[in-house]
């Protein structure tokens, strides 16, 4: 059922990238994979990038772990379907190696404690690495569509912010003063740089200062490469060819997260394009109920009334969310019996998305 023209099916037809957002456990990964199937059925070459698939789903997709290249999933569709899992550990290190001027510089940086902290912050929570991997897949030219399954909501904010944080960090005036000591045209900034380093030494010891100076010095040559990369990723995330789908289950705890996601998207000049309500029970809320209640049906009707109450509550949360996010169209997906954890289940879910 689609309220307003837009649906997953249309998005996967029209866009080059579709990003799925939402809190954990709402069925995002299944919807991402099923959306990719929908695209393959429409004749497109599609790749789904999953962040953290449940084990059985990973098995169903043929992802046993550790694959660097996307894995092809065979199926009865005119297009093609590949699946890739994000490997956070190595991606950032790979970037450092590719931008370093020589292996020695790479190793110095990789061993540096400030780098490890920075990589931990930018890469350890999967945020920036998902965006990086996306860029790799899109640049390969092998796919018409990349579907991105993001980490759970709070971390998805980091996914959207990641590249901007990196460029913001690189643009930091204080950092620039530290990177180019003595060459700064503004003496005040050099003084500031020295004061900062002194404070850092005072609170954390002189080894940290040494590591900090070493990091900034070594990183100097690589900065341009990283900046360009981050800027490309931001371009992708901000493009009209990228669609954003927020998957919700209709719980009140999702509302705050959804608002935060929306404002992050706003900062990229984008918005939520489609809201998918994934736990719809499919009850007919307009169906008249008998009054008075026939004796034998007391339990059955009480049950129905309770479930209707839950359904109404969920739908009202979703509707209010759609309005708050800017009159976003809603697509309700009927809850399937049981979790989806094999290809047949994904195919059924893909049917429900049409």
């Amino acid at each position, binding site marked *: 059922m689609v309220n307003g023209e837009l649906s997953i099916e249309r998005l996967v037809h029209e866009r080059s990238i579709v990003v799925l957002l939402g*809190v*954990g456990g709402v069925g995002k990964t299944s919807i991402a994979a099923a959306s990719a199937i929908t695209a393959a059925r429409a004749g497109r070459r599609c790749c789904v990038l999953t962040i953290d698939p449940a084990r059985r789903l990973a098995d169903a997709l043929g992802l046993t772990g550790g694959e660097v290249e996307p894995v092809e999933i065979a199926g009865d569709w005119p297009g093609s379907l590949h699946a890739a899992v994000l490997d956070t550990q190595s991606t950032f290190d790979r970037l450092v190696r590719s931008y370093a001027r020589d292996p020695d510089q790479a190793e110095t940086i990789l061993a540096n404690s400030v780098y490890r*902290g920075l990589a931990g*912050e930018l890469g350890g929570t999967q945020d920036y690495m998902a965006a990086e991997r996306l860029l790799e897949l899109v640049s390969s030219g092998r796919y018409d569509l990349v579907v991105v399954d993001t980490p759970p909501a709070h971390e998805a904010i980091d996914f959207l912010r990641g590249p901007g944080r990196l460029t913001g960090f690189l643009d930091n005036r*204080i950092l620039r003063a530290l990177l180019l000591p003595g060459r700064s045209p503004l003496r005040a900034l050099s003084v500031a740089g020295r004061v900062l380093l*002194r404070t850092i030494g005072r609170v954390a010891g002189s080894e940290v200062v040494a590591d900090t100076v070493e990091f900034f010095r070594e990183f100097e040559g690589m900065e341009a490469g990283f900046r360009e990369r981050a800027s490309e990723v931001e371009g992708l995330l901000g493009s009209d060819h990228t669609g954003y789908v927020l998957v919700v289950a209709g*719980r009140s705890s999702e509302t705050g997260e959804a608002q935060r996601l929306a404002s992050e998207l706003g900062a990229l000049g984008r918005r939520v394009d489609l809201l998918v309500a994934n736990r719809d029970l499919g009850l*007919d809320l307009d169906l008249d109920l008998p009054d008075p209640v026939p004796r034998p049906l007391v*339990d059955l009707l009480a049950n129905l009334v309770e479930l209707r109450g839950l359904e109404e509550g969920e739908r009202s949360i979703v509707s209010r969310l759609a309005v708050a996010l800017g009159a976003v169209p809603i697509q309700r997906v009927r809850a399937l019996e049981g979790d989806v954890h094999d290809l047949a289940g994904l195919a059924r879910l893909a049917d429900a998305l049409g």
Partner: protein
Amino acid sequence: MDLDELCGRTRLVLVVGKGGVGRTTTAATLAVAVASSGRRALLLALDDRATLPALFGSARPLDHSEQLLYAEGSGEVRALSITSDAALSEYLDRHGLGRVARHLERVGALEVVATAIPGIREVLVLGKVRQLVDDDPADLVILDAPATGHALDYLRSAAGLLRIARSGPLRDQAQRVTTLLSAGRSEILLVTLAEETPVNECVETAYRLEDELDCTLTGIVVNALVPERAGLSADEVEDALRRAPCAAALESELRRAATLRRARAELEARERARLRAELALPQVGLERRPAAELGPDDLRALARELTVGLATW
């Protein structure tokens, strides 16, 4: 385990769980349970300053000064929030950056320090938590942790900082934070839903906490359970419809609703059993509240359920 026992043996409970499982609601519920037993609870929020007060019917977001959210007899719930930028800024001021920093782009300076000393923000925030645990008159401090990924960053930050900062006041801070989180001073309450992915994530979180920290996992709160109902087995449904036939659309809807209820009950039973098999931790289940947006009445009802459930631990 009753609340007297909990308040007697620990000063801080950290409520940990993935996004969307009702972590904040659980923290609030525990606080109300403490208040209902005549004691004072202090709720701490980190990133999210608005959700907690909203649960108590207050429109005022939290800030660094305590806000009274609930009172019952001699018991009460107060709350405040701690932001990492404020903690870092205050700390650097105290350590000599203040005067010069006023000439600088303030945010830029904080970013550079946070990058040079990874984990400093988190350790300073936990340092403030430790201060409250030591000084605040509350009987129990309850921390509404951020969603698990970030919560783990917080909990690991002290160990990371101890590796980097070989000397200096930060090292002392990090050591004190480690003491705070270790067994005896604080406990962790895990929160999940009885569904496949949340249970997987809860199990994984528990393993990681056990591996990486010397902490106590007290138990698990399983939220939003849809209770079983009598008279809804397949046979009972057909029997009822035979005795009181009705329009086809209604019959089909009644059958469907019964099937949904049974399926949900089976799912929840299965997932709770799996949770029990993987983690040797006591569980308490809380029923799903019918209201779409939760408020103080819901918290009171949940708190009663929680108190009864905890008594079985």
